[in-house]
């Protein structure tokens, strides 16, 4: 039986919802509307000449092979960050869920990185991994690997994936820990009594019961990798070398703020917005279907 709070009358609920509605309208609907209008125009930086070009910006985007490469690159980046971050967080959560000494301390330590600002964490990674001045990077530079992410695109991509995934591990860890703790002990003990070993128990009981959490985290991580990694990438590689780490959100910034191409940049942000809305809609649909009560 579900618990519901029923409000008498209509005035009170409307008043309570109004602040959030106002925020949504001012900070999302209004700018989104402006971006959509701007994406249909070609305008100079100062707004002196505005030309309506219809879908011309979008046509220009999708006929540019570089933009399609950027979409592919962003997809690879998001998938890698999500998989890496989820796998590490799940492993850590499983270990931290056990009855060991100091598990409270482990849990706290594992949650701390979430509080570090993305730009700060990026600078820390530079101090660690820069091939000339980084603590670790200098040593790596001397090995056969020739670690230098200023000229090696593959290494740059690897670095930003690791740096971005590291930031998100804490967030996933919290949810996984909560998910693990919500698994009824009786089920696990029954399986143990039936002779199921650790890995088998994990695969057949824990993992399926964690599915709703996992699915939710996949969506959150994909959105994080698509948007919130902007500061990390800009501080580490600025999208280079040679576009190797330029994701869609970095391209939007570069085209909009640095290159002052407002029409094209707005079109890109509209594309991103549509992609994220689709992703979130899919999530709601699937989560709604897979409710495990």
């Amino acid at each position, binding site marked *: 039986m579900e618990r519901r709070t029923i409000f008498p009358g209509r005035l009170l609920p409307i008043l309570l919802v109004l602040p959030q509605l106002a925020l949504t309208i001012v900070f999302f609907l209004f700018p989104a509307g402006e971006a959509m209008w701007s994406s249909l125009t*070609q*305008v*100079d*930086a*100062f*707004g*002196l*000449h*505005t*030309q309506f070009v219809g879908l011309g910006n979008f046509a220009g985007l999708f006929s540019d092979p570089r933009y399609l490469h950027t979409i592919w690159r962003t997809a690879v980046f998001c998938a890698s960050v999500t998989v890496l971050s989820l796998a590490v967080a799940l492993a850590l959560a499983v270990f931290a869920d056990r009855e060991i000494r100091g598990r409270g301390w482990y849990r706290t330590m594992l949650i701390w990185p979430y509080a570090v600002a993305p730009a700060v964490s990026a600078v820390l990674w530079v101090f660690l991994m820069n091939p*000339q*001045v980084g603590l670790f990077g200098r040593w790596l530079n001397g090995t056969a690997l020739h670690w230098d992410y*200023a*000229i*090696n*695109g593959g290494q740059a991509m690897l670095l930003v994936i690791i740096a971005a995934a590291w930031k998100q591990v804490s967030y996933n860890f919290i949810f996984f820990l909560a998910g693990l703790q919500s698994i009824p002990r009786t089920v696990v003990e029954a399986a143990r009594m039936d002779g199921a070993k650790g890995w088998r128990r994990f695969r057949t009981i824990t993992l399926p019961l964690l599915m709703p959490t996992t699915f939710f985290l996949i969506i959150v991580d994909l959105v994080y990798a698509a948007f919130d990694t902007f500061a990390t990438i800009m501080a580490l590689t*600025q999208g*280079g*070398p*040679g*576009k190797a780490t330029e994701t869609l959100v970095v391209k939007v910034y*570069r085209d909009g*703020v*640095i*290159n*002052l*191409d407002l*029409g*094209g940049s707005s079109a890109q942000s509209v594309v991103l917005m549509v992609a994220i809305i689709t992703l979130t809609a899919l999530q709601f649909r699937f989560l709604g279907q897979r409710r495990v009560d």
Partner: protein
Amino acid sequence: MKRRSLLAGAAALAAASPRISLAAAGKTRVVFWHAMNGALGAELNKLIARFNASQATAEVVPVFKGGYPETLTAAIAAWRAHQAPHIAQIFDVGTGSMVAAGPAVTDVWKLVKDTGVAIDAKNYIPSVRGYYTLADGRMASMPFNSSTVVMWYNKDAFEKAGLDPAKPPATWPEVVKAAEVLKSKNAAKYACTTSWPAWVHFEQFSAVQNVPFASEADGFKGLGAKLEINAPAFVSNLQRLLDMSKAGTFKYAGRDNTPDPIFYSGQAAITFNSSGILGDLKKSAKFKWGNAFLPYDPAVIKTPLNSIIGGASLWAMTAPHRTPAEYKAVAEFFAFLGQPAQDAEWSRTTGYVPVTFGGYNLLKSQNYYTQNPGTELPIQQLTRGHVTENSKGIRLGQMPQIRVIIEEEWEKALQGQQNAKQALDVAVQRGNTVLRQFERAVKG
């Protein structure tokens, strides 16, 4: 009890918040948005204080807006909201956008005409002024903090390699040979590197070698300019750098000023960087250093020309209801900056080059250059030869994007994906697309 102390705390916090400095009553207030932080910002504040104290009608209020790109974006957004500052410090590569800004800016020549304040273009050093003038020589913006690129080298490393530290290489073939010697004698981890790859090896290269960077006199004559950086001179220069990279004598270490630490830490023996790093080197270098003229390619030119300035200039912006008194105050501030004493003081304390002949001569008469080795070289490089269409500066829209395009293609070439000719052909094609977009957007 708890709520009262909370409210009291909030009130105290509000009262303690920093106040924006307001101009004294009766004076014309001039808002100046700039991008000078740290020691440069402190010097700027001193300069502005001197101006405010020198007269009683105007007061300039400086506001630090962040880095150059942020200041440009903020100025544009402010103008669109009818709240533009009186003066905005815009970097060199934003000049194309500002010149195309139409009613958003008041050119210096127009300020002079409208307000009657005396600012004579002839007082300004041609290669410094040239970047910020219109095609016919009228000044558009006021040159302010200008530097140029020179070659910096590690004298200790040169000695270790058996090279004469008093005779740095003057031509590109000599640089290649010196780098080989430096590498073979293991005098430094990297023989040669560079900061600002596109600015140095394309824009400055085109000026010094007198080859056009783009058509229409590097864009000064019109918006229809096309890039010409795939000409043989540029291709052979880039190929030379790529060959040096493969031979291990040249290290590409990133864009903009990311590679700076490699030279500061002594790991590179030769680098190309702004003349403004002199102050940092004096403070923190643990080795003997020197600077020298940019090398030239004797196959392209026998006597190299001047290099181009970098840095920023000051633009007078418009706003509805801006009064003639405010424009006059702006013009008076610009004129103050051009006074020999002020120009010399700014140059001496910051390391930027003087922008007027008066300032340059004053510094010479004060023996500043003889007492501070290395400080006169940039201005000598800026005043050598005669200014041509190719060495006046670059007037292209979307310059930041074009620089990134050049650097991206260079980086792809470094990874072995293409050679110099292919890289520059692609760069020209991509750059021209960007220029046509800019042209279309500005023409409406």
